């Protein structure tokens, strides 16, 4: 990389291994600084000053500079990012510090992208992506490009505005267009959300947070912040397996997962192997023998028998202690000896205690995760913790180049905590951590020989001091595996080896005996022959032999011989091998949701039993502490406030997952809701006046496909010849003009010109109407002259779209009462299940601007709106007119038919028992009406306000922001509680169910 020409004072041309902090010493992205496009063209930044740390002279010197701006140089062969030092010189940025990378990755990707696009203005997304893939390895480049770009929108806007070449780029133009359309923007944000929940623990940089990202996502973002998710062996993050038990630890499950840190790992061979375990318990939790965090020796933690070690009561701790060890730590001075022994006996009796980790070792203060300075640095090897501000200088965040100072503290591994090793533990340079022999698993051997203390100790399995160390670089992998095998089965010392191998022998013989005994029919010598890997000869010979044997005992069924078994097993194995579960899930995932609707992760495995138990216990313990006169701070050490938030979130997640079991069992559905047939007829009665001869009527989500049929019936009777087109994901019973197709995949040229199109009806709502918005947006691409919609109120109104549509009328109460039903479901009397919304979704008719006049005329003629009403085009008046419409809505209630329906919903319900005709939502819809609309619509309940919705005023709903359908896509295709498509039987239940209106 060329360095920029600078004169005067001695400043570094470029820095490597850099990072930026603000005045509070928090890592920040340089992109928050003012952006200098040219010398006189400076954009305001969120931040005026930042501090650059980095290395110069090839890492020989470190540098610390105050910087006040940054710029992007696109004219070189490589994109250059420079920052402006306070002395007005530009410093070129080379490589960021590894741990800082996540903060600036997105801006660097954007820079790279702009640079490429500038040179290739014709480039389409695919080419850009493939270019980026080259410079960013796929692991680093996990997020969709659009998301990256969206987070740096101001930068892109400026770049396109100021740079002639960039302005030519088709891709950026299209991108900005889409972004300017708020709905698509929301789509981008949604991608954003889902990605934020990536299973990698590296949290996304703060600067990526958008204004639009609402409370819900933030909650979900920090949902894991209470518990650390770094491997207990090597203290690094990544793909970890969580123990369900009380220890609340995580482990790298495979050698591959922990390869970076030479982690010895749990030794699973592949993901399939450990994913098959429904609930993983580490050996400590399995045998209820945990290590004391002070002395490191194992003790029984089984409360029902004689427990030796006791867990700290703090919700997020998970460490165990001998009563004596922890009592001495809590009362270290001689003078407190009496207190210590008192505490010791209390703990031994089962009294809860908080361990020393929850108080600063220096100032004895508590932790406050939200205050940067009061965040804790917790030693991974012993119960010692410091505030950030109290952290001794000797515990350094950076190692020195000459190796005299080792890095002992890491800032970004634990959520809102510092991971550190205190001075007691010498760091081994080759692995970057202290010895890793800190973990002691009770091994199976132990159970069989109860021979006194010493032998017991030996039969414990200790983790490798050096992990799977790099010395074996040449042939690392096989070596690693071998080593692991060794540790797993035998352990390290020869004595231990001898011990365990004898036991091993007994086990094998024991296991060998068992089948022989149980299978007494079979002569045992045959069993001996029956070893796997038979050659063909034997396979062919033996059957005839067995046939001969059969002669003797004609009446008994032929015995299963070994060959047959192996053959069958082989056959089944082949069948299983030919099945690729990942591919299968991927395919299903694609099929079972609307493409555009990004399914999210399933019930996350981070909700472990241990965590739930500990949290619940901590809540009680904290209360007790308060009752006993403890301070709030003490209580918070036991149960920090976030634990309460966490509990609420967990419950929500679990309740969605468990919905089928918590709520009614007679419900069957893909989660669809169909509009009742009488309601549809009403809609048809109104709508047909607006339809003209030769129009095409499109139901973009037709469900049972009745709407089109009624339309046809009606229009035919009035002599209008029309075409019909119906789309849905699930084939309905009635396939009249039906095409099984995702609405979003219908291209614009598949349908006639917009002036011949009447489109709409009841799309799936999606969470916060997100799916409904997307349906509408796709519909708008066809520019239909009329759109008829049943959508929740929080749907974005069509008069706020880029090319606004005019509201002809909006009917709020038409779909109140039991207007919907759940197809395929019956109640106890085998009657179809009805459904209603607390706040009914309005029915609305929208007209393309150039057709408005005509449609209003029709509406007035047929009394759908009153004469005096006009729908003007000007924005200012539009709001007024909407209010007018709403005020006048009541006149529609005079329709006699409606009244009848409202009076006798039950009668209607019975009447349509045999008629499953209606329009629908598609099945990804469970979250739609049931989860979202009762909540949201009631929140938007007040009529006096004009219904003007934009993303900001939609209530950040407390309801779960995930679609239970997602569970169809979790790892186990037939997993339990496949909670998709499983709405609560009636949204009315919602009021009692814990999702009341706020």
């Amino acid at each position, binding site marked *: 990389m060329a360095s920029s020409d600078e004169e005067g004072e001695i400043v570094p041309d470029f820095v490597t291994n850099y990072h930026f902090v603000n005045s509070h010493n928090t890592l920040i992205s340089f992109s928050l600084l003012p952006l200098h496009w040219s010398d006189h063209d400076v954009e305001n930044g969120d931040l005026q000053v930042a501090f650059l740390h980095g290395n110069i002279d090839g890492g020989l010197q470190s540098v610390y500079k105050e910087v006040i701006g940054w710029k992007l140089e696109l004219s070189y062969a490589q994109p250059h990012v420079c920052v402006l030092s306070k002395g007005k010189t530009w410093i070129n940025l080379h490589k960021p510090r590894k741990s800082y990378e996540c903060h600036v990755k997105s801006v660097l990707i954007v820079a790279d992208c702009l640079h490429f696009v500038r040179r290739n203005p014709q480039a389409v997304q695919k080419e850009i992506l493939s270019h980026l893939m080259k410079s960013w390895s796929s692991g680093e480049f996990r997020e969709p490009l659009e998301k990256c770009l969206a987070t740096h929108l101001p930068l892109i806007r400026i770049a396109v505005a100021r740079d002639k070449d960039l302005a030519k780029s088709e891709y950026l133009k299209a991108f900005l267009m889409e972004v300017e359309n708020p709905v698509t923007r929301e789509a981008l944000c949604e991608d954003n959300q889902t990605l934020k929940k990536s299973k990698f623990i590296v949290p996304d940089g703060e600067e990526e947070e958008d204004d639009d990202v609402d*409370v819900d996502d933030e909650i979900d973002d920090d949902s894991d912040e209470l518990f650390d998710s770094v491997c207990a062996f090597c203290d690094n993050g990544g793909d970890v397996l969580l123990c369900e038990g009380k220890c609340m630890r995580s482990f790298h499950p495979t050698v591959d997962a922990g390869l970076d840190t030479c982690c010895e790992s749990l030794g699973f061979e592949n993901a399939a192997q450990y994913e098959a375990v*429904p*609930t993983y318990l580490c050996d400590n939790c399995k045998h209820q023998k945990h290590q004391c965090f002070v002395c490191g020796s194992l003790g029984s933690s089984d409360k029902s028998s004689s427990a030796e070690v006791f867990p700290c009561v703090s919700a997020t701790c998970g460490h165990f202690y001998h009563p004596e060890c922890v009592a001495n730590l809590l009362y270290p001075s001689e003078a407190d000896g009496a207190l210590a022994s008192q505490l010791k006996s209390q703990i031994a009796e089962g009294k809860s205690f908080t361990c020393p980790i929850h108080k600063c070792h220096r100032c004895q203060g508590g932790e406050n995760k939200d205050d940067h300075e009061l965040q804790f640095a917790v030693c991974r090897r012993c119960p010692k913790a410091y505030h950030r501000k109290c952290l001794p200088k000797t515990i350094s965040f950076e190692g020195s180049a000459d190796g005299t100072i080792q890095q002992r503290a890491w800032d970004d591994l634990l959520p809102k905590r510092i991971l550190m090793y205190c001075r007691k533990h010498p760091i081994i340079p080759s692995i970057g951590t202290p010895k890793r022999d800190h973990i002691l698993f009770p091994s199976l051997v132990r159970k069989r020989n109860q021979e006194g203390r010493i032998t017991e100790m030996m039969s414990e399995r200790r983790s490798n001091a050096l992990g799977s160390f790099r010395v074996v670089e040449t042939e690392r992998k096989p070596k690693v595996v071998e080593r692991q095998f060794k540790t797993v089965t035998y352990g390290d010392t020869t004595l231990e080896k001898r011990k365990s191998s004898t036991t091993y022998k007994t086990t094998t013989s024991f296991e060998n005996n068992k089948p022989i005994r149980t299978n007494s029919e079979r002569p045992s010598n045959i069993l001996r022959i029956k070893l796997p890997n038979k050659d063909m000869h034997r396979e062919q010979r033996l*059957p005839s032999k067995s046939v001969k044997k*059969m002669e003797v005992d004609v009446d008994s*069924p032929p015995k*299963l011989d070994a060959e*047959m*078994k192996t053959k*069958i097993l082989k056959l*089944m194995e082949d069948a299983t091998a030919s099945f690729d579960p990942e591919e299968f899930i991927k395919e299903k995932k694609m*099929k*079972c949701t609307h493409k555009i609707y990004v399914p999210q992760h399933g*019930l996350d495995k981070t909700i472990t*039993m241990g965590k*739930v138990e500990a949290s*619940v216990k901590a*809540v009680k313990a904290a*209360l007790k502490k*308060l009752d006993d006169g403890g301070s*709030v701070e003490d*209580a*918070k050490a036991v*149960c920090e406030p976030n634990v*309460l*938030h966490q*509990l*609420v979130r967990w*419950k929500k997640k*679990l*309740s969605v997952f*468990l919905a*089928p*079991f918590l709520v*009614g*069992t007679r419900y*069957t*559905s893909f989660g*669809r809701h169909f509009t009742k047939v009488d309601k549809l007829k009403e809609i048809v009665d109104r709508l047909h006046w607006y339809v003209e001869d030769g129009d095409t009527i499109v139901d973009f989500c037709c469900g049972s496909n009745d709407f089109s049929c009624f339309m046809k019936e009606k229009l035919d009777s009035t002599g209008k010849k029309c075409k019909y087109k119906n789309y849905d*994901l*699930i084939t309905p*019973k009635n396939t009249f003009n039906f095409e099984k197709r995702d609405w979003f995949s219908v291209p614009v040229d598949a349908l006639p010109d917009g002036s011949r199109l009447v489109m709409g009806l009841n799309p799936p709502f999606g969470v916060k109407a997100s799916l409904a918005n997307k349906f509408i947006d796709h519909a708008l691409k066809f520019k239909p002259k009329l759109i008829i919609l049943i959508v929740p109120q929080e749907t974005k109104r069509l008069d706020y779209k880029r090319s606004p549509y005019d509201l002809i009328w909006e009917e709020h109460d038409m779909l109140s009462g039991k207007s919907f039903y759940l197809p*395929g*479901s*019956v109640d106890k009397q*085998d009657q*179809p299940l009805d459904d209603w919304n607390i706040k009914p979704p309005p029915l609305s008719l929208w007209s393309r601007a150039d057709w408005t006049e005509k449609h209003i005329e029709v509406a007035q003629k047929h009394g759908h709106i009153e004469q005096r009403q006009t729908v003007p085009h000007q924005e200012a008046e539009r709001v007024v007119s909407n209010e007018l419409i709403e005020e006048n809505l009541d006149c529609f209630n005079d329709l006699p038919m409606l009244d009848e329906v409202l009076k006798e919903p039950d009668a209607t319900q019975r009447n349509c028992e045999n008629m*499953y005709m209606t329009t629908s939502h598609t099945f990804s819809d469970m979250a739609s009406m049931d989860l979202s609309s009762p909540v949201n619509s009631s929140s938007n309940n007040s009529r006096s306000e004009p219904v003007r919705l934009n993303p900001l005023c939609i209530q950040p709903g*407390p*309801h779960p922001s995930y679609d239970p359908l997602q569970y*169809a896509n979790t790892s186990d*295709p*037939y*997993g*339990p*509680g*496949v909670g*998709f*498509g499983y709405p609560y039987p009636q949204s009315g239940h919602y009021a009692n169910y814990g*999702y009341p209106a706020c």
Partner: protein
Amino acid sequence: MEPSTEYVAFEEKVKKTIYIDNLSPQVTKAVLENAINQFGNVKDVQFIPTYFASCGVCAALVEMESAKQAEEIICEMGDSPLMISGMPRPVRAQKAQVEMFEDRPKKHQRTIVCRWMDPSHRNFELARKIKDLTKKHAAEVQYIMKLQLEEEEKLHKQQSETLKTNYKKYELIDGVQADGNVNRLKAEYGITLNDH
């Protein structure tokens, strides 16, 4: 030999029928009929014993209006898992097989006559071979069934275990919320929870 007309009609019926298993024992005829009715017209529902699933799982034959509808439903249910009556796994649909019908008519109008065969008969060896082969097949089928059953049971156990633990977690949290502990602590901390 031409199959009997009765059999031809029966074969038509088989084509229109889907076999559904992984059904909960709570599923009644009405429930199943309604569930399938959203995709087509159900003509008949018949519960049959299931051979490939573990305890507490039912199966049924559902006859549709047309073979096309039946095919579409199988396709639909394969694409998007359908849950009926709180069974912890989606129901499974496949084409019905002739052998699934207990009341199936004979394919050919002929009678089978049994007789003893003398070992000296020239076809004796052949007959014996056929007999052995049949027995062997039966044994093989039995073994495969056993394996499949084991697998099913394992899955079933695994699923119910996961379900149970998840439910236990839920109950734990629910308990501590229900007895007001969370609310009290919340008040002490002076924080508000987003727990609606």
